[in-house]
């Protein structure tokens, strides 16, 4: 047995869990209630989200919660008895999170620097 590299993924899981816990409920209130109910105009929200601080926040809110999902769901499958495809599942899940991070970075970062 050797020391695992799991801390890398656990750190991402923890960071994602924190970001999700602090920000997602309020974010859902904004996007599922305040905008559809007209308390915030969709275009006004878009302009706010276009701001560079919002873009960075958005990047964090996309990337980290997805790593949180990847890590937690990977272990949840083991809990449910799916213990065999451990490596393929890990690659698929963390890969999805990483790929989404790259997509988000590509969409959100360039306008900050241009």
């Amino acid at each position, binding site marked *: 047995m*050797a*020391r*695992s590299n799991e801390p890398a993924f*656990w750190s991402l899981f923890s960071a994602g869990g924190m970001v999700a816990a602090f920000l997602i409920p309020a974010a859902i209130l904004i996007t599922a209630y305040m905008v559809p109910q007209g308390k915030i105009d969709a275009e006004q929200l878009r302009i706010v989200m276009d701001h560079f601080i919002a873009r960075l926040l958005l990047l964090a809110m996309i990337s980290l919660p997805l790593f949180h999902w990847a890590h*937690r769901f990977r272990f949840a499958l083991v*809990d449910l008895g799916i*213990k065999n495809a451990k490596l393929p599942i890990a690659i698929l899940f963390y890969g999805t999170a990483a790929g989404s991070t790259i997509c988000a970075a590509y969409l959100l970062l360039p306008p900050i620097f241009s």
Partner: protein
Amino acid sequence: MAASESQTATETMKLEVFRFLPDEGELPSFQTYEVPYRDDWVVLDALNYIKDEIDGTLSYRWSCRMGVCGSCGMMVNGEPKLTCSAFLRDYYPNPIKVEPLNYFPVIRDLIINMDQFIDKLGEVKTWLIPAEEKSVDEGEYLQTPAQLAKYKQYTMCINCMLCYSACPVFGQNPDFLGPAAIALGQRYNLDSRDGGADERADVIFSSEGIWECTFVGECSEVCPKNVDPAGAIQMAKVTATNDWFKGLLMPKGKKKSGGDQ
């Protein structure tokens, strides 16, 4: 034991006890026994009554009958309990189902195979590895109350293994080090006299150590001595993570685990 006036000799209750007799080639089954109900009896008293008066073939472990030896752990109505601490009055008048501890192989009746657990204790090195070697002539190791407080809770573990029976991760993977072994490892890692955290880290910080744990938390709920193994494991995760990042940033430095967090 004087019979109280409010109790008649006719009050009884039923125990449905798991039986498994490999020598007789029988499949596992449940046998129902009717035992006297006394409001000061525990499930262990009922089992002893069964063995003494009804069926001497029933096999089970017990010793101190007062919650300090950790021998008498069994599933009582699906919950891992020390049978010496589970009072009949909390179940009366309903029948009580008694089964061997979950997630362990059964040798016979209510006796489970705990060899792998003992092996895990050896792997974790649940003994003091002194930070500084001292001969007896040099005097005692000194420790402040604050230093003692850091690990004292984990010294209370009586190796009863109720926590393993509550842990679904262990249920799915018997190779998981498990709550008690890790808590006992932490008992020494956090002891200021100990210098063995680095030695233990290869086992505790392995993928079959703390990283299998998903913090269900039931281990701490069922622990009869309030050891809080779940808390011990989460602290170990933080320590392991700090060590891992330090290892990244200072790769040339000798890998020393910061066990005394």
